[in-house]
């Protein structure tokens, strides 16, 4: 009885899922998004080293306004090499919080919200690294989590991927001093925190072995 009532309530709510990533995002945030402009403005994380904007360092503090402007473009991820195509059609993620403020965690979970519904793209979360295709690392380096991350990676079956999510994990952001992993990772999803659009697009590309 209970299930029938809730099922009907669910049906009445209608379809809420966007077509993204096969169409453009319906409501992308301005921050974070790709910044365009010129010059080397003041930046607390030195995101303009070498005169080019580095999305992996940007924390959306807006100090570079008006020299640089946000475009709304959510494609701010970086797949740095050849990603081995996953053997199965599904893509299982095991997230680990090394030292976050909590916002990266909640944005990652937002890909399960009906507007994004990651499961329609065969992207799922798993409770154990033993079933994971990708380890999603978030936050700054913390001593207490170093072993936990190493053990989770060890427990994963091959082929396995490591994804750095958010400025803290990619570059240290404003809180950390350096990237979470000394050698970095193959896939970087920029933003502080990255929006669900950016996360979903990067995961789909990683799953399909696209660069």
């Amino acid at each position: 009885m209970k299930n029938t009532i809730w099922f009907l309530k669910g049906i009445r709510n209608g379809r809420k899922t966007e077509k993204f990533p096969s169409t453009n995002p319906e409501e992308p945030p301005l921050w974070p998004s790709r910044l365009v402009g010129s010059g080397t403005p003041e930046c607390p994380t030195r995101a303009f080293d070498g005169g080019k904007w580095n999305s992996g360092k940007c924390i959306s503090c807006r100090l570079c306004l008006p020299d640089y402007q946000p475009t709304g473009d959510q494609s701010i991820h970086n797949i740095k090499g050849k990603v081995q195509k996953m053997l199965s059609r599904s893509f299982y993620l095991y997230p680990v919080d090394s030292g976050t403020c909590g916002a990266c965690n909640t944005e990652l979970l937002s890909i399960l919200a009906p507007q994004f519904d990651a499961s329609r793209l065969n992207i799922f979360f798993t409770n154990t690294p033993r079933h994971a295709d990708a380890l999603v690392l978030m936050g700054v380096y913390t001593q207490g989590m170093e072993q936990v991350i190493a053990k989770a990676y060890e427990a994963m079956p091959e082929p396995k991927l490591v994804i750095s999510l958010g400025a803290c994990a990619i570059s240290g952001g404003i809180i950390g001093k350096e990237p979470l992993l000394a050698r970095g990772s193959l896939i970087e999803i920029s933003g502080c925190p990255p929006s669900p659009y950016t996360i979903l697009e990067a995961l789909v590309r990683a799953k399909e072995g696209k660069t």
Partner: protein
Amino acid sequence: MQYYKTTRGGGRYIGQTRNFTVYSDSIVPPIRVEKKPSEILPGELIFNYGPSTGGLIESVRIALPTPGEMIRSVAVDPAYKLRKLKLTGLSLFDAFMRVERINGYHSSSYQAAFIKAAEDALLIGDNRGIDDGLVLQMELERIRSHLNVLERLCEPAGFGVPYHQLAQMREEVARLISSIYGHRYFFGVHASLQSSPKISPGLTATANGLKKRFALLFESLQSSKIFVNRLQGTGKIEKPWLVGPVARAAGYRHDARTDSPSLNYEGYGFDPVVEDGKDAFARFLVRGNEILSSFAIVDQVISNGKPESAGLKDMHGTGIGASRVESPQGDLFCYLTLKDGMVENIEFCSPSISNIIAFELSMQGNIFTDFHFNWESFGIWISEAGVEIE
């Protein structure tokens, strides 16, 4: 400090910072309480949960010594993901960029506590536009945070439809926030006066539509016997030092929106939501009703207020300030010493510390199947408990 006394007054206990015991009207030297390590009794085992596992949003280790089904005691260790934030010696603005990331999910509350402590230190009088701006941020943040707790309560109960509908509403609030502030977590909002909130003409209708849909869902959940049974009687706690929704679910009217002068809620007709069940269900009721009361405040600010950004870049000076605001999980206190616009000392008392102690006490004598419901009903954020601020 214009409001806080340094001798013990009559106010309620809020918590501890590095150098102070904080009451609602005074700060005095700290009381050091040694936490005894939990012992194992004969025939017991320790069930360790975390620090990293699917059921937890953040990294935390929870140790549960148990003789079997019943949980005798609980110890929460937030130190696995301990972050160190050095704020002393930084300019107000540089410190602010880090402060808003102590708890990213409640960044507005940290922004408000910091800005109000800075205004107190620099003897800057209340500015209605800035206060309207902070109230709007904090009430939107409260709506999203409470939706998140309710959503997480539906998950272990296996209530898939309301779980997804609450997730949908939470995402809608994130988009509403993004449309006003340009960022889904309010980061960078007070960088300069250029980043003042943008209130679009359709905002009131969007917020009201969301409020109506939430009210219907909230009513349906309350009339679901299976859902109510899972929460009623779970994790009972009643202590005079409780803060936030946990206190209000135990019959206390503790709410910094009415008993702290830091942020002006006068004129919004606001009255704390109080329940007396003391359990996870009472905490669910408080949060659900607070979502509705926060929507009412948001409506008033959008219709009558002129929310502004604080423009921190333009604040300079020397002084000592303190503030206390109501974050979604309870009192958040900030103590700040400034010298020539640079931070000399900064201390926070975060509600998650109090809520962790309350959770530990409330779990005693409950059974394993209650664990998830009870944990989620406290809405604890490890990011603000596992952080060392210098």
